[in-house]
């Protein structure tokens, strides 16, 4: 406890408390970050990580607690004052403006006056110095996710930060981009800038960080030395209990082709979209096909066309057990045994302000239609689904505050259980999942992944579209990558490495707006 060590400490937060109404997001949090240290912040969703760093940056004000920078008490009352105090932040979903240029996006966060000429040359200088190539005059809307992150980082670097905060930066990057990012962060830390790094990726934390602080339900439960801990210890401290491994039965011999896509083409219907080009895939019963890719490469469009929300140009572009169904809409496909589970739990898979029986009716209504009784087909209403709704809640352990709650009264994990249960109760032949564990806690994520495995083990065909490479490798039998609307060749999972996939994810397809392969 020599005083010399105290001088090393750049940032010290003491007893930070923050509540939103009745909900306590941060309770008595203490954090200490040395100069040049890479400090990771680990915790499940809702643990309070984002709230805490927003307080450090000045977007939020704490209810109580103090912050010291270089042993001086500071008051960070706004992002501007955060920047003045040397704090820079890269938000998880970025704080960029698509309709503005790179230079304008950087200028907007600069508090000092600077001429446009000077700005451009400074951006170019920093860009070169840190290997973060970016053209200052391009519009953000034309940039890839990786490029956008570079803009965010340069924007922070322009202010010569003492502490750089990064909120889940790697969820949207290819493995190569992640490597690059780590190089930059390590270089920054060597040059004396401290880094506070939020992540739920345990392996990354161990590779990158010096110290890890683990948050759970708003409290700081532990601060560990990242170099001497293990992913197992981290995971268990974070969740508070033992994590079960997935049970996988590796014997699969089913050769029946369940679902096939042949030369599917779909032009984007507006400027924001991605055109799907010549998609080909085949999946057998009992298999899990993993489609990896960074968000924004056509996954949504692919999901739409596979589910039937958008029909194909040609009936033969999609085949179910060799029967053309390309021109059948989503309801007809459900009848035939195809169940899509979309990425967005609210506003897409469910309607938040409607009750669970109404949300069940949402995808079950076609069952109550009677070919013979045309008149009564008008008078079907959510009441018809009440019984099935109750069964879904019971069978899937969906925790409800009341018997028939509104969808927005459920927690994220429980809503996902309901959505999965609703689809699985139909005993589908083919299930298509898009980002099923995005934003879901480790405990719930494990249970969802187990459900996927169980499905395939029961002989169903499962298509998994996911940004999470770990998940893809853990679950899939076969793997491919979607990049700018183009699907790579499909390979068995043991014939391809994460690095190969990374290259495919980041490759420059059709010289569009993709990032360069570094």
């Amino acid at each position, binding site marked *: 406890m020599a005083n010399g060590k105290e001088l090393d400490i750049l940032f010290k937060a003491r007893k930070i408390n923050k509540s*939103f109404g009745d909900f306590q997001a941060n309770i008595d949090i203490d954090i200490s970050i040395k100069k040049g240290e890479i400090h990771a912040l680990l915790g499940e969703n809702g643990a309070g990580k984002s709230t805490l760093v927003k307080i450090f940056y000045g977007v939020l004000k704490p209810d109580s607690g103090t912050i010291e920078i270089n042993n001086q008490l500071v008051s960070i009352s706004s992002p501007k004052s955060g920047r003045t105090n040397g704090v820079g932040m890269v938000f998880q979903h970025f704080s960029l403006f698509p309709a503005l240029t790179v230079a304008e996006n950087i200028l907007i966060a600069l508090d000092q006056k600077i001429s446009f000429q000077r700005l451009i040359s400074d951006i170019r200088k920093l860009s070169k110095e840190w290997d973060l190539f970016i053209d200052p005059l391009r519009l953000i809307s034309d940039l890839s996710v990786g490029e956008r992150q570079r803009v965010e980082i340069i924007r922070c670097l322009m202010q010569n930060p003492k502490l750089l905060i990064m909120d889940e930066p790697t969820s949207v990057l290819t493995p190569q981009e992640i490597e690059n990012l780590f190089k930059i962060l390590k270089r920054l830390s060597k040059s004396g800038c401290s880094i506070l790094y939020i992540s739920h990726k345990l392996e990354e934390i161990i590779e990158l960080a010096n110290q890890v602080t683990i948050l759970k339900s708003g409290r700081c439960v532990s601060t560990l030395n990242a170099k001497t801990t293990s992913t197992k210890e981290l995971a268990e401290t974070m969740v508070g209990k033992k994590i079960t491994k997935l049970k996988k039965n590796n014997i699969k011999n089913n050769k029946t082709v369940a679902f096939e896509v042949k030369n599917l083409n779909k032009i984007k219907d507006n400027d924001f979209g991605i055109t799907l080009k010549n998609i080909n895939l085949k999946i057998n019963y009992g298999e899990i096909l993993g489609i990896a890719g960074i968000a924004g490469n056509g996954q949504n469009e692919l999901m739409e066309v596979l589910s039937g929300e958008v029909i194909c140009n040609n009936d033969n572009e999609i085949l179910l057990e060799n029967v053309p169904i390309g021109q059948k809409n*989503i309801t007809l496909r*459900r009848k035939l045994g195809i169940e899509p589970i979309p990425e967005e739990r609210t506003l*897409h*898979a469910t*309607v*938040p302000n409607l009750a669970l029986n109404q949300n069940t009716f*949402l995808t079950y209504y076609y069952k109550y239609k009677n070919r013979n009784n045309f008149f009564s087909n008008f008078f079907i*209403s959510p009441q018809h689904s009440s019984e099935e709704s109750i069964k879904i809640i019971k069978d899937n352990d969906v925790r409800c505050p009341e018997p028939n709650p509104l969808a927005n009264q459920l927690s994220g994990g429980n809503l996902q259980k309901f959505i999965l249960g609703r689809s699985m109760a139909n005993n589908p032949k083919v299930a298509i999942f898009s980002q099923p564990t995005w934003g879901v806690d480790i405990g719930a994520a494990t249970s969802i992944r187990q459900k996927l495995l169980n499905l395939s083990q029961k002989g169903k065909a499962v298509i998994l579209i996911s940004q999470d490479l770990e998940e893809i490798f853990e679950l899939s039998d076969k793997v491919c990558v979607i990049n700018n609307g183009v699907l790579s060749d499909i390979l068995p999972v043991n014939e391809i490495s994460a690095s190969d996939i990374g290259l495919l994810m980041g490759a420059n397809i059709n010289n569009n707006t993709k990032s360069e392969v570094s």
Partner: protein
Amino acid sequence: MFTFVPRDKVSKNWVILGPLVSIIFTIMFGLLIFTFLGYDPLETLYQVFMSPFSRVDRISDIFVKACPLIIIGCGLMLCFRANIWNIGAEGQFIMGALLAGSFALMFPDVETKILLLFMFLVGFIGGAIWAFIPAILKTRLNVNEILVSLMLVYVAMLFIDFIVRGPLRDPMSFGFPLTKPYPEGALINKIPFPGIGYLGQLHYGILLIVLLIPLSWIFINKTLGGFKITVLGSAPKAAKFAGFKENSITMTVLLLSGGLAGIAGVVEVSANMGQLQPEVSFGYGFTAIIVAFLGRLNPIGILFAGITIATVKLGADNAQMTMGIPKVVTGLFEGILLFFLLTGETLQKYQIKWKRFK
């Protein structure tokens, strides 16, 4: 000073409280404005809100005035629930009345009320055609329906002016722009009550409301169509996920609301005027927007909202006669009422948290 915190459960109290509180606040505000302008607040309060209840025939006139508001309101309810902003109900009302009136004048000697039934059909078609224009532009070309439907209001007003002063003008009307009087079969008669005679202007058109309110309720709550509308307005992506076709729903609600507005137009002219004139609507299409909101997009609510607004309109008429307050002032109140209603909607979802000064 204060901030909003999301409620974890939407306050059910505010669903009914909202409109009630809004009405009370509007009255208070209004009285303040009147006092400021030099009118006696208590007298104003009586004239605007009580005088319509002072005589039986006046009460029945409330229903007469509420009739078109409720009919149009039910149609707008469908549109607004689907998040389609049909602002042109006024124009659809006019075109419905115009088309039906032109049709009726082709049969000048018909006395049977079967003519009236056909007129309802024609009026529905007229309003629906007028709503079809913004509908097709929205579904095919994604043109915003607010401006299109509104522009068509001005077009409709000018068009009926042209027709009434031109091709359909009654040569015997001596300078007044009027069409020939409707044949007997095209009129909606007042209801004769045994022993009492007529109750103000109360006419058989009221029966339409008796039919429409329960029908609307059943449609919204007990049919697949009504469910589709609700889902589309709440979450368009979920509607797609369910397999509901957005364009069909959009077209349906617009045509239905246009048609209903058209029927309201037929009722107004056949019951209260007996012939076409350049001005057949007195802002009903716009007032009905307020009625739909006040009624929280719910048929029962719209029934009460229509009665409330009609009361105020009649009261304003009386206030003009007895106190000289220009009746155009109802617009003032309707606007204030809408503001308070919308604030109530915010309070339904969010709670006020007063910030303490540090």
